[in-house]
């Protein structure tokens, strides 16, 4: 059988830094093919070469056995390669129809856009995915899941032979993922190949036929998914021995062993415009409280409300000191920190150095007569670079030059430097490679042992189940139940979420 896509010997470097070296990829017609690898392994670069965003320095790309010369995303689309990127590559301000037909609008005889036909076509395509929405409304007014499906609808409407999904599920909840998977299976059944990139190994086993593993800009291996084990894949991604990983466990959090202390913060009946309906939980000293639930259940919203970012319409957050807690500045003054989910948008200040990024929240405490106490600042920063093993050429290096995992450590240091009582961690290890993930988890656990209280949000059930001492399960903005470690299993957590689902359905 001829491969649909065959990339061989691909090389690419950026400003002298090698991103890809002799990388290869072969996709068969109508298969679901996964690419996995740590951050920086070269997955995205390889795909962007395939879709014409980047130009390769070396190597060969073939489609159905004939050489393919693609230099722009448009040419890739015209050749039948459609891409759905991690950050949605749609325009939220424009209507659903426009996002589906953009660039391929049906025309009237006068050469003008025929909006009636466009709307009809869009409705028809979306109906195939069981999506029924007002296609004339702004795309941005719909949920991420629907936006994701619109992106796929666009791909399908272009008669794609290959659909590339880059981290397509990272912002979807379970039901939405199910819908997405059925769409993927439908695509496969109609002979369309899907290239699937994901951090979640579980998903591979659900829908993928074959998997290609990348590491350090090279292709390590390609397997039939059925012949692999999760451990085997991880060890190939890391380039480490399987038994070594197994001994260490998959996460380094291991909750449920410490003795929690007094209550530091109590949230009662939180209700907000952002989607909280009745969320209550407590955070105690020396414990990790997990917030469990599907996306959109109010996890992040609860964290934001506690940190004074979103206004409450009802309920209250009671800090043990009795002080008011309405703004992030007040929260920080009370010894709270918030490591946000979106590192790029809410975390790093790209132009600033590692030093300046670490001490950002600490500034008020580093002040001497309006000026920054530079000597104390340097000592402190040096300490955290050492303690968290942040890989940097020096504290003056701009943070944007660091890898994702190290940026995350810098942000963690920003909050640890405050010596906080309570630290909110929203997806602390998302988009971080496996090695750094492990390190970040150990740091957190150590801090908790020293008395820190942590509110943990994670989409990875493993992290939550193994890491949290308690898990508060949220559903539609309400806290519905609480699980206690040791004793929580993934099944129990899923059960707790699902149980309520059934009840609310009945």
């Amino acid at each position: 059988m001829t491969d649909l896509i065959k990339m061989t010997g691909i090389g690419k470097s950026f400003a002298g830094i090698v991103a890809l070296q002799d990388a290869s990829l072969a996709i068969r017609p109508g298969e679901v093919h996964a690419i996995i690898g740590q951050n920086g392994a070269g997955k995205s670069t390889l795909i962007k070469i395939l879709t014409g965003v980047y130009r390769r320095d070396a190597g060969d790309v073939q489609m159905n056995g004939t050489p393919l010369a693609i230099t722009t995303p448009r040419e890739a689309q015209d050749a039948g390669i459609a891409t759905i990127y991690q950050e949605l590559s749609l325009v939220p301000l424009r209507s659903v129809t426009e996002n589906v037909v953009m660039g391929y609008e049906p025309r009237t005889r006068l050469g003008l856009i025929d909006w009636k036909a466009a709307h009809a076509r869009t409705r028809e395509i979306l109906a195939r995915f069981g999506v029924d929405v007002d296609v004339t409304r702004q795309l941005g007014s719909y949920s991420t899941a629907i936006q994701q499906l619109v992106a796929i609808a666009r791909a399908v409407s272009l008669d794609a032979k290959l659909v590339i999904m880059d981290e397509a599920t990272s912002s979807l909840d379970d039901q939405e993922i199910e819908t997405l998977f059925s769409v993927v299976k439908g695509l496969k059944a109609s002979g369309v190949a899907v290239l699937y990139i994901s951090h979640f190994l579980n998903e591979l086993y659900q829908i993928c036929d074959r998997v290609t593993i990348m590491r350090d800009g090279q292709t390590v291996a390609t397997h039939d998914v059925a012949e692999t084990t999760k451990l085997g894949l991880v060890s190939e991604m890391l380039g480490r021995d399987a038994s070594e990983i197994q001994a260490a466990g998959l996460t380094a959090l291991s909750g449920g062993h410490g003795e929690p202390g007094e209550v530091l913060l109590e949230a009662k009946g939180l209700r907000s415009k952002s989607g909280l309906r009745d969320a209550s939980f407590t955070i105690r000293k020396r414990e990790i409280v997990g917030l469990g639930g599907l996306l959109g259940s109010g996890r992040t919203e609860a964290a934001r409300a506690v940190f004074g970012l979103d206004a409450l319409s009802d309920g209250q957050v009671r800090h043990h000191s009795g002080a008011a807690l309405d703004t992030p500045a007040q929260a920080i003054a009370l010894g709270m920190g918030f490591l946000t989910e979106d590192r790029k948008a809410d975390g790093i200040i790209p132009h600033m150095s590692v030093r300046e990024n670490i001490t950002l929240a600490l500034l008020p405490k580093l002040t001497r007569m309006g000026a920054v106490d530079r000597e104390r600042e340097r000592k402190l920063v040096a300490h955290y670079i050492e303690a968290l093993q942040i890989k940097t050429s020096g504290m003056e290096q701009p943070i944007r030059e660091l890898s994702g995992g190290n940026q995350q450590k810098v942000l963690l240091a920003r909050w640890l430097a405050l010596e906080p009582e309570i630290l909110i961690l929203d997806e602390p290890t998302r988009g971080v490679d496996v090695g750094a993930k492990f390190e970040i988890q150990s740091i957190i656990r150590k801090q908790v042992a020293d008395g820190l209280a942590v509110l943990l949000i994670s989409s990875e059930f493993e992290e939550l189940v193994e890491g949290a001492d308690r898990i508060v399960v949220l559903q539609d903005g309400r806290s519905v139940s609480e699980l206690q470690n040791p004793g929580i299993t993934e099944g129990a957590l899923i059960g707790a979420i699902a149980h309520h689902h059934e009840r609310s359905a009945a």
Partner: protein
Amino acid sequence: MTCAGFFRPGGHSFGVWVVLVAMILFGLLRYENFGGAYNISSFLNYNAMFIVISVGMCFVILTGGIDLSVGSVAAFTSVVAAYLSPYGIQVALPGAVMAGLAIGGLNAVFVVLMRIPPFIATLATMLGAKGGALVISGAQTISIDWELNFTKLGMEKAFNLLPWTIVITAVVVVGLWIVLERTSLGRTVLAIGGGEDASTMMGLNVNRAKIFVYVLSGGCGGMAGVFLASGFGAGQPLEGVGWELSAIASVVVGGTLLTGGMGSVGATVAGALLLGLVFNILNFENGRGVISLSAYWQMVIRGGFLFVVILLQSHLARRSKGATQ
């Protein structure tokens, strides 16, 4: 949203229409000659150039860019038109518009090819075009012989109905409205403002659309220069100061997001008319002799007006944001 017409109730720009109608009603009820043919015709005739540059500016802003050079372009092309006027309007008009297109093309080169931020690039061409206008004119107004057919543009009526200036403006406005609402190019312009990277990823020809808007805006500046020269019977190298900001104000008053991605030609025209009406009504009020406000007050009132509109927009934006959550 997609097949939005000229009027878009409930949309971002609804307010501007309400205020416009209210002001017209106010004028009609309060002043005798407000609705007279002379006032309407001279009002539109004078504001035609502002309408044209505002519409061009609207396109640029929709892509998330800005064009500060339009006022200087109008000044420059008015001089060009004046120099070409002896050869007749059939040469002077296209010549001046071409000059405007050329400066727009320069903006496009700076912004699209050299990747200079639009604000800075057009700031530079603004200075350059102003300098150019002064250099070629020797810093003098270049008067045009009233005998030439060029000056008839602003006075002679097309088909014995409306002055040519107004007809041309209407054609430009309707034409560009169709381009924006009904062509792939127009939709690309809107998409770019909504997300330039996303548009590239969708395979849209982003560069072509960006080049188009800057060239278009330059051409609109050129057209305004023609109107300026014909209306005053002279090339005016010193005119055009602050026009770009009036145009931006018109676009903003029309409800177009300065960040791009949302807005319409119709609402921009309404915005331009609205700002023009402020002057018109002020003149009438002075004419009644009850109050007497110096010309300086007009600027103050315009600024105040902009302030009110901004407050309203910010209030509306907040409300609609609250509603979606």
